[in-house]
């Protein structure tokens, strides 16, 4: 009797404790869920606000006539589009459902930034730009109307956007949870035909399609690629070379793996056209630093010369643990072409080359007809802020703009109150093209 009673009491207590625990869990879950819902709904509402503003700004550009007003409008388009894209990509919706809309917003923003720059240079909005803007406005209008419809449905049916994050297969998922995703998919399908935008920004359509300029030579076969790899890895005891996947990206490659006698793997990709080494990586992790970073730079330079890259100058280096990564640029008769970039990784224990990356070089390098500067160094110097104390001899350089266009610039290196800067003055137009900031740390100097 007493035993049964004890068991009953114990069970009751257990049930009670479980119940309280359950209620607590439920409340916690509900809190999280509501918090998530609030975040998603805020993002969704802000997304609509941003898209509406883009629509209105683009409409205003139709009647704006002064560079000042244009700049205000285009920079606002840029800001709003960036925010809209950011919010859109944080919604708990599959990327596939958003990819076109996301691309539209990125490009509208980037295009707006490009037009802001154009206006700052005093270039008027061209007829082509205007046609683009008209069409973009139409698409922004479409997006606004559709998002508003979706908003009305979400409000009318009391749809919780946090429900989207839930896996649809579970028992309690509501069909209406899926509605926003369905609607966005439908909107997405309309967002593909907006005009192809070609302008001077990093997300411009033509950037993806630039053919590599530095891939010279005949196509090679696999056996030849193996020979190239063996030559490139001279000095390392390679046991055997394995064939890995070919690369079918912008540069078509043979992928190889070299096994060393120490049982390390070295990966190396060699272009099918011309047999150039595109990149190499040795995964060995050096345990100590016995040579100086300066010595590493010399080693890397010798290595490049041995492999036929004679006119490379070291520009920057950075140290991570016991590895030094050194950037080299091509020296084209007194002009440093930062576009033609090769990176070399050197182990600081024994000076072994641990990595090589020449994609920048192979994509950009070509025989150039570099124009004579129209400005003298003194004339360019006058365009530099007097706040900057110029420290180093001025260097002529070729720098890539955001659209990969190359411009001839004077590079001034200077100091402002303990911070170091690089200022690039266009040697033909005198335009202050770019300012880079140098960050000095114990790991080396790098640019931002």
């Amino acid at each position, binding site marked *: 009797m007493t035993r049964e009673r004890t068991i009953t009491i114990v069970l009751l207590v257990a049930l009670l404790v479980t119940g309280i625990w359950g209620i607590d869990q439920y409340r916690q879950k509900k809190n999280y869920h509501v918090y998530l819902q609030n975040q998603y709904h805020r993002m969704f509402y802000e997304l609509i606000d941003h898209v509406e503003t883009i629509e209105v700004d683009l409409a205003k550009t139709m009647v704006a006539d002064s560079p000042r007003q244009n700049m205000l409008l285009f920079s606002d388009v840029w800001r709003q589009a960036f925010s809209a894209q950011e919010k859109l*990509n944080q919604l708990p919706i599959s990327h596939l459902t958003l990819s076109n809309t*996301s691309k539209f917003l*990125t490009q509208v923003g980037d295009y707006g930034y490009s037009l802001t720059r154009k206006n700052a240079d005093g270039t008027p909005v061209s007829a082509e730009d205007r046609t683009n803007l008209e069409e973009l406005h139409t698409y922004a209008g479409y997006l606004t109307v559709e998002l508003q419809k979706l908003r009305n449905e979400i409000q009318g049916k009391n749809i919780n956007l946090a429900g989207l994050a839930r896996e649809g297969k579970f028992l309690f998922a509501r069909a209406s949870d899926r509605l926003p995703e369905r609607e966005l998919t439908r909107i997405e399908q309309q967002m593909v035909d907006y005009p192809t935008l070609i302008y001077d920004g990093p997300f411009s359509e033509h950037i993806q399609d630039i053919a590599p300029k530095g891939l010279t030579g005949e196509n090679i076969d696999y056996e030849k690629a193996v020979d190239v790899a063996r030559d490139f890895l001279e000095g390392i005891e390679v046991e055997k070379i394995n064939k890995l996947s070919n690369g079918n*990206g912008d540069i078509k490659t043979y*992928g190889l793996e070299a096994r060393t006698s120490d049982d390390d793997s070295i990966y190396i990709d060699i272009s099918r056209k011309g047999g150039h080494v595109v990149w190499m990586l040795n995964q060995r992790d050096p345990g100590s630093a016995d040579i100086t970073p300066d010595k590493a730079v010399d080693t890397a330079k010798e290595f490049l010369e041995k492999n036929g890259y004679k006119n490379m100058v070291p520009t920057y280096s950075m140290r991570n643990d016991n590895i030094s990564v050194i950037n080299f640029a091509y020296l084209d008769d007194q002009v440093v072409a930062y576009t033609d970039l090769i990176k070399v990784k050197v182990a600081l224990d024994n000076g072994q080359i641990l990595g090589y990356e020449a994609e920048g070089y192979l994509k950009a390098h070509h025989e150039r007809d570099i124009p004579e500067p129209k400005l003298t160094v003194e004339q360019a110097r006058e365009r530099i802020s007097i706040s900057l104390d110029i420290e180093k001899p001025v260097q002529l350089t070729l720098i890539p703009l955001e659209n990969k266009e190359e411009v001839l610039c004077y590079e001034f290196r200077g100091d*402002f109150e303990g911070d170091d800067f690089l200022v690039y003055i266009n040697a033909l137009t005198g335009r202050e093209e770019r300012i880079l900031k140098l*960050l000095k740390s114990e790991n080396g100097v790098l640019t931002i």
Partner: protein
Amino acid sequence: MKKATLVLAMALLCVFALNIGYSVYMRHSIETATLYWGSTGDDVIEVQRRLKNWGYYDGVVDGVYGPKTFQAVKDFQAKNGLSVDGNVGSQTRAALGMPTADSGYTPTRGVSSRDNVYLMAQAIHGEARGEPYIGQVAVGAVIMNRVNHPSFPNTIAGVIFQPGAFTAVTDGQMFMAPGESAMRAAGDALNGWDPSGGAIYYYNPAKTTNNWIYSRPVVKVIGKHRFAK
């Protein structure tokens, strides 16, 4: 007509004069920062204190730029390869580690291009810890390629935390301490090594249930992952 020209000329002259005035003012405000024999004040105290700490100066730290300070500055300049003039100009100030002009500007702190190494290493570790090293770098490269692609978020954190983009992020596996090889792989990917051939997707054919992904052109196969554009 003539009057209008005159007004214009006057206006231009005014602008010109203002410009010159402004640049003179700017130069002046930088030059005021130079300390020399006879200077007094907090900055001199600071110079004396630093020189005393490093053993160049053995007088009292009194804020008066006298002969002893002058000699100490000259010694400091000679030791540090500066032009030896006994004045504390902007270069000497910089060498002393003092702010180089009398303004509210503070030199940059904390900014680094490696801020995202750890985050990216976590993503790589979560997604590809069993993969060959090169496959880990390739996962990092896909993240970088997405940052530079219009259809994806424009930041590394944006790409990594995009809902549903990476399994290891969705199920929280990425919040482990990354392995040493993931850290190196993240560094290589941030430095521009791209073994993925410019891919923006990858998948494990043995695990994926998404049919759409098979329609993407495969640019590289590394370990268990197919990398696609």
